[in-house]
């Protein structure tokens, strides 16, 4: 009943407004404009209100000009002009440029109170804008300002609105105004609370917690109930948010670690230069984008797609070179391998620093990877979403490669029993080189993805190497599923610890937890069993 009454009232007001506007339109607009020529603040204020109410198409331009100090008046001729952006003088009422403008034009002065009135009027005017996005923004602005003066405009806008999402925003804005208006009845205020509650974000909590002092107790109680329910739902959302961030971090870790899972996990080779393979992939993306910018800017949207195979080729072939040139002489001496590859990582970093300079290079995102959308209270950016999908795709692809191809079969055979594989005619040296190239190539692909979210600098890889080793050690060596689980577990655990402990302490806590975890399961979540352990 109450809601119905409210709606009827709104309708009636809106109707009245429209009628009034239609009747008085042209004449009242001109009259209102002359209010600006009086050079008194109170007249100007009345004029702002009158112009805003007139419903004239020029109203928004006039008020915007006033806000920018471009609204000029002629004290003698009692006419108002607008100085356009290009310094032409136009008549305010018609927008027609005038050739011989009077010389004694003066800007209409504003004070702080008037500036607020101007803002409210502009907000009210854009409530009727053509573009639904602008109407939505205007509704949000009113929600924040809670300006009583905007109520009539809000209600008429609400009555006209066709877009459901803008309508919701308008209803929320209206509720915010009503709750803060001293003149509104208790019933109206109570009716307004559900709209705010449905909005359910931090702003709603702030609004409900900051109701004016003379609010009736029943409303305050309802507001407190709403706050409690919003906060409990916000907690759920923040958990979802953390889980999302965790998934996102986990996917990055997965990308960085999955190549390592091949070289370290499957082949037992410690590659400290793995991070540099990632870095090379990121720089490949940079080079691809530079070439595209220089020769064919239209292809920029595909730059990342083009960079993926190239990065795989660059990092992969360098990986094969490293394996053939260095690592194969060090099989069975993992500690020496570790030192040699660390040295390589220094050389690669310095080489890139020499070639590209020590500073961050700018890698752009194609349009389909930038931007974000909201799910409830959750803000999801496209690049993170793409990276999650991409890392899972790489994982599945790698799993398929190992499981279903001849190369995968041979690689697994060499891993499980090298002499036996060799006597079956598998060229183990070639498999070693290819497997190392594969792991490095995947690191290169990871670099393409990381270039979208991280700084592309020679130190890019260093930031990931310890984390990726942790993932592989935690997940268990020699098992890709362990790497997947390890990456996401560590990613999510990291993000859930961060709010309590801060980013750095959270990271330290994770490292300590891993050290303790390794006590319990020295060979990770999924340990190899049997003879392979001591091999």
């Amino acid at each position: 009943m109450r809601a119905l009454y409210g709606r009827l009232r709104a309708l009636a007001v809106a109707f009245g407004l429209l009628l009034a506007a239609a009747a008085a339109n042209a004449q009242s607009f001109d009259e209102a404009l002359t209010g600006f020529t009086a050079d008194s603040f109170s007249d100007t204020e009345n004029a702002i209100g009158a112009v805003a109410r007139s419903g004239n198409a020029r109203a928004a331009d006039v008020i915007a000009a006033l806000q920018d100090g471009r609204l000029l008046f002629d004290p003698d001729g009692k006419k108002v002009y607008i100085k356009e952006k290009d310094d032409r003088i136009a008549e305010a009422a018609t927008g027609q440029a005038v050739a011989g403008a009077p010389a004694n034009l003066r800007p209409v002065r504003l004070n702080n109170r008037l500036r607020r009135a101007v803002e409210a009027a502009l907000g009210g005017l854009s409530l009727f804008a053509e573009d639904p996005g602008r109407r939505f923004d205007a509704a949000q602005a009113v929600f924040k300002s809670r300006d009583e003066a905007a109520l009539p405009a809000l209600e008429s806008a609400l009555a006209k609105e066709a877009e459901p999402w803008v309508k919701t925003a308008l209803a929320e804005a209206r509720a915010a105004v009503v709750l803060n208006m001293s003149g509104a009845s208790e019933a109206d205020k109570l009716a307004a609370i559900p709209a705010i509650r449905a909005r359910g974000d931090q702003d709603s909590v702030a609004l409900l917690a900051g109701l004016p002092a003379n609010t009736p107790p029943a409303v305050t109680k309802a507001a407190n109930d709403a706050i409690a329910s919003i906060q409990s739902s916000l907690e759920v959302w923040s958990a979802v948010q953390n889980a999302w961030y965790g998934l996102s971090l986990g996917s990055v870790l997965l990308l960085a670690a999955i190549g390592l899972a091949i070289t370290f996990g499957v082949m037992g080779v410690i590659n400290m230069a793995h991070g540099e393979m990632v870095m090379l992939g990121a720089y490949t993306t940079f080079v691809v984008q530079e070439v595209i910018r220089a020769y064919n800017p239209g292809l920029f949207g595909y730059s990342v797609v083009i960079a993926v195979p190239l990065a795989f080729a660059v990092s992969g072939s360098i990986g094969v070179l490293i394996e053939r040139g260095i690592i194969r002489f060090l099989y069975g001496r993992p500690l020496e391998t570790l030192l040699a590859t660390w040295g390589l990582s220094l050389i690669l970093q310095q080489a890139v620093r020499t070639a590209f300079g020590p500073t961050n290079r700018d890698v752009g995102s194609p349009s389909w990877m930038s931007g974000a959308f909201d799910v409830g209270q959750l803000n999801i950016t496209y690049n993170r979403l793409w990276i999650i999908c991409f890392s899972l795709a790489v994982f599945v692809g790698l799993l398929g490669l190992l499981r279903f191809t001849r190369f995968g079969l041979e690689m697994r055979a060499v891993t499980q029993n090298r002499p036996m594989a060799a006597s079956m005619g598998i060229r183990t040296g070639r498999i070693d080189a290819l497997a190392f190239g594969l792991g490095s190539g995947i690191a290169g692909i990871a670099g393409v993805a990381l270039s979208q979210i991280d700084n592309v600098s020679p130190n890019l890889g260093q930031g990931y190497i310890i984390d990726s080793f942790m993932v592989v050690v935690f997940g268990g060596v020699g098992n890709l599923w362990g790497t997947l689980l390890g990456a996401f577990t560590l990613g999510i655990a990291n993000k859930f610890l961060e709010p309590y402990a801060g980013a750095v302490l959270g990271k330290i806590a994770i490292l300590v937890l891993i050290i303790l975890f390794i006590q319990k399961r020295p060979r990770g979540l999924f340990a190899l069993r049997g003879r392979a352990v001591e091999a």
Partner: protein
Amino acid sequence: MTGSPLIRALDRVGVVFLVLLAIIAVAVPLGNLLVPPSSPWHVSLYFVSLFGKYVCYAILALAIDLIWGYCGILSLGHGAFFALGGYAMGMYMMRQIGTRGVYANPLLPDFMVFLNWKELPFYWHGFQYFAYAALMVALVPGLLAFVFGWFAFRSRVTGVYLSIITQALTFALMLGFFRNNFGFGGNNGLTDFKDILGFNVQSAETRSALFAASVITLGLGFYLCRAIVASKLGKVLIAIRDAENRVRFLGYRVESYKLFVFTLSACMAGIAGALYVPQVGIINPSEFAPGNSIEAVIWVAVGGRGTLIGAVLGAILVNYAKTTFTSGTLAPYWLFVLGGLFVAVTLLLPRGIVGTAEHWWRGRGPKTRGNGVAPAGVADPHPAE
């Protein structure tokens, strides 16, 4: 080889080395303080503080060689123990500044006043006494190594796993010390030291004394390591390095041996750090950077792991090269050299300089096995990691 038990642990080269150290410990400070600058025999203050620094690095290298060369534990986190010792000494010297700081607070170091702290954190108490600080220099790294090693060795974390975990340890400590609310000066670390034991840290006399103290400590450390590796304990350590499981099956408690030598090595690293800080005048969290620890390992590898003297030689040679490179026009190429050194040493010179020389000497001379200490373990084609 015969005679008093005190020198029984040393072979001929060891005795020569110690005598050489003793001469350096006396001659260099005298050359700086007594010989006039005009004389060609004058040792500049720059040289004293530079080589004082190298000697501290050499002690660190010795500590690493003890566990890596003789027990097969490759720690990539020894820089953490070094830095912890350095911080303990730095805390002592911070407390000595007293009212001479920028804020002239008698109790709180400048950075705490700057952060608006009202009282000294509990872990800073006692550091105004040198004896306490000197104890902490060895105790804190030792305790950390003991706890860490107790967990790691008990659950048989070995080989590369241990290396990576130690690297994570120093990484975690670096992140922690970078934080302001950790209470160790955050990013800037501890610096602006005024004096140590009442002597001005800037003066030539103090620097010479610190140099001599470092060289003497190096000698003592060398003697201690030598005594350990030549004893029965040392033979067990070498056996653990070469075939850990076999030693365990023979009834030795491998983890206890490893824990002992790891803790001792961490204490040595801490002492090295404590001598280092007054000579360079600053300690900050970048000392914890994982790269530093790995660099220290390469000193040992260059000199020759499992030779002790090689570790000392490697530390001084590599750091001298680093200074030469990074202070000239060749600075951008230093990382190429360092990286190349890692690769070249592991591929071409796995025994290191001293190890190779020893091997060559032994191949020429009569087939004696010295005092029974095996050469570096690189000869073993199948090391049990």
